[in-house]
């Protein structure tokens, strides 16, 4: 026989923290009280009796990060990553919300597919999971997906993942059609025919290595087209994975003209260059490809000055079979959930970026792009990351919670580490 126990509110207090909230501009010492997964009080407060209290040792407590661009191998390739392992990996990176890419197998292009992902996502408690849906059926660029029905069942936005929609008229129709639902579109800018199946940055190095290259100009031409379509249709649009100096310049100009677009990149594009490909290192095969030093520097500057709104992990797990092949045959992408914060922190540690600005790029700004909120305010979900920005450590892919280990940064020393992560007030990650 069971006895009904009256439900009491679960309360906990996290004291002695440096509270940093880019959304509200808060940066102060204080404490946060969490009740039933929600922020009950925050600031200069003293928790009362009968409340579990933990000391944050003056570390930074900030809203959990929001990763716009995550691939799990589910459905299709769960051996590389499933939604559960991705959520656990996210937790160890301080990422409390993430949006799954739709270019799975099968592609998430109808309400049934989206329902599958949503049901799986609801079972995960380590992270809040959102799902993109594809713009075109099978992400094949030929016919529109059921944009309205997908929006109705909760698609967070529409993208064909790494494949740009090559047919300009089709993308224009999608954007106009989507206005009935106010949906967000996103795409990686690239002129597909100019890119022509390249596997690395197009230039002197690709020439020397004998590998087909994607010219940086393909990104600019693709971006200019996308921006003009936004101008023509009035669609909401997010530019994904900016990797070149020319694209940064075009984006800056578009924003100064008042065009309402947002953009993201990933740490590899402001930390690494095409030199990583030397030795035909397949872990350096990425989409878009790593570029030249001047491109890298321009992307870094664009994140620092805010032209690029969000830094994403572009987490793309690949197993050994997908990478231990000749360079041109290797599947593109690298994992990034667990290193997103530490790699990005280099912009603050070495690049002179403000702490709050960087944390905004990882949290409240990507959240806002998807119409979500990440902030330290009373009534908001208690989704936090606790950061030790002095800690120096060495990335060891052997310790990843992700099922895949394909990172370019294995063995590199970095500064800044996530030491604890909460989702709805529950600790979902704690450093050993």
């Amino acid at each position, binding site marked *: 026989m069971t006895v009904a126990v009256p439900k009491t509110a679960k309360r906990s207090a996290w004291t002695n923290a440096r509270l940093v909230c880019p959304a509200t501009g808060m940066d102060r010492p204080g404490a946060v009280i969490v009740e039933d997964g929600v922020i009950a009080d925050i600031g200069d407060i003293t928790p009362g009796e009968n409340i579990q209290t933990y000391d944050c040792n003056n570390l930074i407590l900030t809203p959990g990060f929001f990763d716009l661009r995550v691939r799990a191998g589910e459905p299709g390739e769960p051996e590389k990553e499933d939604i559960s392992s991705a959520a656990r990996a996210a937790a160890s990176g301080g990422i409390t919300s993430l949006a799954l890419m739709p270019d799975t197998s099968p592609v998430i292009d109808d309400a049934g597919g989206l329902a599958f992902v949503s049901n799986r996502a609801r079972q995960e408690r380590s992270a809040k999971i959102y799902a993109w849906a594809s713009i075109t059926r099978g992400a094949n660029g030929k*016919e*529109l*997906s*059921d*944009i*309205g*029905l997908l929006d109705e069942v909760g698609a967070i936005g529409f993208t064909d993942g790494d494949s740009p929609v090559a047919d300009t*008229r*089709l993308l224009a*129709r*999608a954007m*106009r*059609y989507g*206005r*009935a639902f106010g949906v967000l579109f996103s795409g990686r800018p690239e002129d597909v025919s100019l890119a022509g199946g390249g596997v690395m940055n197009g230039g002197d190095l690709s020439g020397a290595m004998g590998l087909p290259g994607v010219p940086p100009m393909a990104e600019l031409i693709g971006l200019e087209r996308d921006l003009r379509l936004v101008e023509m*249709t009035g669609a909401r649009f997010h530019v994904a994975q900016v990797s070149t100096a020319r694209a940064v310049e075009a984006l800056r100009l578009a924003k100064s003209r008042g065009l309402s677009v947002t953009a993201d990149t990933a740490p590899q594009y402001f930390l690494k260059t095409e030199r990583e490909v030397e030795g035909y290192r397949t872990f350096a095969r990425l989409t878009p490809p790593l570029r030249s030093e001047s491109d890298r520097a321009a992307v870094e500057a664009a994140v620092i000055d805010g032209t690029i709104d969000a830094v994403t992990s572009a987490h793309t797990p690949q197993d050994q079979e997908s990478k231990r092949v000749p360079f041109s045959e290797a599947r593109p992408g690298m994992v990034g959930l667990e290193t997103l914060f530490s790699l990005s922190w280099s912009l603050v540690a070495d690049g002179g970026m403000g702490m709050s600005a960087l944390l905004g790029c990882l949290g409240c700004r990507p959240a806002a792009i998807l119409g979500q909120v990440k902030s330290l305010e009373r009534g908001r979900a208690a989704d936090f990351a606790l950061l030790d920005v002095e800690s120096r450590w060495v990335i060891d892919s052997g310790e990843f919670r992700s099922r895949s280990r394909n990172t370019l940064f294995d063995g590199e020393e970095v500064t800044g580490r996530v030491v604890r992560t909460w989702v709805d007030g529950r600790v979902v990650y704690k450093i050993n």
Partner: protein
Amino acid sequence: MPTLTPAARNSHLLGINGLSANTINSILDKAARGPSADKPLAQKVVVNLFFENSTRTRTSFEISAFKLGADVVNISTRDSSIAKGETLLDTALTLNAYKPAVLIVRHPNSGAVDLLAQKVNCSTINAGDGQHEHPTQALLDALTIQQSFGTLRGLKVALCGDVLHSRVARSNYHLLDTMGAEVRLVGPDTLLPSAAAMPNAQRHLRLEDGLKNIDVVMMLRLQVERMKGNYFPSVREYYHFWGLTPDRLRVASKGALVLHPGPMNRGVEIGSEVADDIKRSAIVRQLENGIAVRCACLEMVTGSFTPEQ
């Protein structure tokens, strides 16, 4: 170019755009009174020249011409010299030799009926040119609405669905706007024309917004071929958001009337419950009014009835 030219030797009805409210009113009054009993078109030849398949419009004109005593010749393009490559203007010259009184033309290209009208020695009625105008459809719709509401002035009328490709919508917009009705265009942005094309109409992308307090709902036929052009993703999705169902009509004003130019795609733009609801649906009455309106138009272009200017 004026669409109605009574001063010239031949008068034409090429479109609604350019007709005055007085002219429209007198055509509607004439249609309501019914055709003249004295067979004003006796001994005259009326040619139905249809470059596009049509059953109801062609038959409607044919019956109207018979009622007025005319001899009617149907030329369908499949079994004529047009199918052998004759140009539109050569066809006009050929027809001139037969001395018809009225030429009734439907053509897949916008503007083609205007061109033909300039080259023939008889009156011309546009029975639908491309995506441009279909004036007799707009007149019969107006007569149908008038029978229910007494007037067009101040009524809220929604043109729903594929407005972009619809000649029915263009003619109806001009007529309703001229007569002082409030016109709304309702459909996905991909199927609405640019704002300047129908400047006084309000645009609504969602049916539930566009039908609020509406008096008349004009459903337009959705050509399923449009799906290949990616104007919308699927019939299933289209019906879900823009299909007319009793549920969707709940926000309309009490006694709202539903019109459809036909042929209907049940389960695409209109549900059977609505199409077959005799209290709401005026679809059968539209067909009856088609004869009355076309008789009035035939009498007008042949001079046995002169509308106000």
